[in-house]
């Protein structure tokens, strides 16, 4: 439990650890017992839950109507597919906020705003998390002193300019029709244009959702002098609790809506539009918006459609999907205001449309 004071940590609650520890010890010990009991209780509850699960799986005949059962299967599938990435994202966000000295992140960035944004849009190369995991990371970056437009550049570019996505897209398409190249350059361009547009905003803090802006403000002006000193491990666990409370309801509701739309809208409506240069792009953008799967794996999903759809529409799917979809909007709403999300969606959709049409004309 010994945490050496760190001089390069600008805002951390554990800074003055050393002085307070002695008089905190006895109550802290007693509290410890209570919390071990909590953890044991939690473990018992979860075990009970798994037993209930095992019993109902064998004995219960749900008899739900097909549409409802499929809605549950689809939503659960989105949640189970995204959950590991969310956990990874929260873990990396904790790493960035608690364990990496602030100066590291800010030192490597150029001073010039275009250069800064360009470098930030390549952060995904060493933080390979798909889009849902990037939301907690982007929140961590804002808390670490990045501007709001810079956090958006990261959020938009990282799921596309990311080694896992590049490898899977290459596995699926190779260099055929310029799909891979268009996806990477398109993602980079859209992220930087978006960052530039939002950097013109007179009051960037107003782009954030009220609650998130409030929690950032609180982080900034208290923490040095209130409460017990917290070790880095405790800070990490606090962050895990906070991020999961915010992201999990958003993820589950996003998954539920995405599942519901898939049950309700017949797939052939979209597929029948495949060979028109304009409508194929619009149909694929709509599909990307609805389907809400992670950028790391969406190439495999879209590959079977490549025989019926024009390459520009595939590129539009691969560029829009990682940035804006139903699940992502629910997740991003935890951090940005509704107005911001409407603007972001409009800009990204227009740019993806232009990109898709461009590829269709060239290919």
């Amino acid at each position, binding site marked *: 439990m010994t945490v050496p004071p760190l001089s390069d940590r600008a805002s951390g609650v554990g800074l003055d650890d050393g002085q307070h520890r002695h008089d905190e010890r006895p109550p*802290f010990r007693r*509290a410890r017992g209570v*919390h*071990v009991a909590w*953890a044991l209780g*939690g473990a018992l509850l*979860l075990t009970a*839950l*798994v037993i*209930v*699960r*095992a019993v*109902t*799986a064998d004995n219960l*005949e749900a008899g739900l109507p*097909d549409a409802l*059962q*499929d809605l549950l*299967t*689809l939503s*659960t*599938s989105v*949640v*189970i*597919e995204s*959950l*590991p990435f969310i*956990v*990874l994202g929260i873990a990396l966000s904790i790493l960035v906020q608690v364990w990496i000295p602030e100066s590291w992140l800010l030192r490597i960035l150029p001073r010039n705003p275009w250069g800064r944004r360009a470098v930030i849009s390549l952060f995904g190369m060493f933080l390979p998390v798909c889009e849902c995991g990037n939301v907690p990371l982007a929140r961590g970056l804002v808390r670490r002193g990045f501007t709001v437009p810079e956090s958006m550049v990261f959020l938009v570019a990282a799921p596309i300019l990311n080694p896992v996505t590049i490898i899977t897209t290459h596995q699926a398409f190779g260099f055929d029709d310029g799909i891979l190249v268009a996806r990477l350059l398109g993602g980079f361009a859209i992220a930087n244009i978006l960052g530039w547009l939002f950097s013109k905003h007179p009051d960037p803090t107003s782009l954030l959702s*009220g*609650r998130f802006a409030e929690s950032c403000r*609180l982080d900034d002006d208290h*923490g040095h002098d*209130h*409460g*017990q000193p*917290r070790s880095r491990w405790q800070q990490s*666990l*606090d962050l*895990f609790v906070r991020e*999961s*409370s*915010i*992201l*999990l*309801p958003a993820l*589950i509701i996003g998954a*539920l809506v995405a599942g519901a739309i*898939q049950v309700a809208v017949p797939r*052939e409506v979209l*597929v029948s539009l495949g060979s028109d240069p304009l409508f194929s792009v619009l149909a694929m953008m709509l599909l990307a918006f609805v*389907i809400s*799967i992670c950028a790391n794996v969406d190439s*495999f*999903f879209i*590959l*079977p*459609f*490549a025989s*019926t759809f024009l390459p520009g529409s595939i590129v539009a799917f691969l560029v829009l999907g990682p940035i804006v979809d139903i699940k992502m909007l629910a997740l991003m709403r935890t951090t940005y205001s509704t107005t911001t999300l409407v603007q972001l969606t409009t800009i990204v959709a227009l740019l993806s449309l232009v990109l898709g049409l461009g590829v269709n004309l060239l290919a």
Partner: protein
Amino acid sequence: MQRWRGLWLIAALSAVTLWLAASGQLVLYIHPRYIVFTVIMASIALALSLAALASPRQHDDEHEPPPPRRDRMLGLAAAAIAAVVVLTTIVIPPATLSAATAEQRDINSSAGDDPAALEAASSADASTVARFTVREWASILRQTSDLAFFADKPASDVVGFVTPDPESDDLFYLSRFAVTCCAVDAQPLGVPVLLPGWSGQFDEGSWLSVSGEFISNPVATSTLPIVLEPTSVEQVEQPSEPYLF
């Protein structure tokens, strides 16, 4: 209490995920290649959740002004819906996608053309052909309507579930979902089977094992050139891996 909501959600979901993996049912939701990653991250989430419960509380909530009423209600509603969804993952038995979704997603509409597979299939020996699943047959049927190709290639014990053919009551599709990532992207594939009056024998969605020969389609109302005429149709249990990966 509010700050612990997410912790319970993530802990419960992780526990259910681990149970699904242990009972071999995670493949109902995701492709097998993601199982290891998913299990590792779910274990980490579970460990962090328990550690967070055991760690001393931080009382910074007291300094925060309470959020506006509207936000609080929205947060509560969101958490309640999320809790209900998580509860269904605990009590409703895991299930594969139904035939209704296969129909709704338009069977074979997005199956890929794979000329290499067709080439390989044309020179395949009898034992290879006997192992063809719905995926191989659907891909071959998509690419050729040459009866000579099927002359010495019978379908043997092809397993799939029954999906009605929208064009004709005499035909049904013996179908499977092909999954590339997770159940969300499941693409229905199917082999048309000629069995007039099938709906009196089998329910939609029931699992069958079918053997037979491919013939030129005699049904006038159908646009399919070639169909499978069964020599044997057996009702079977749903396979433990219902999707084709």
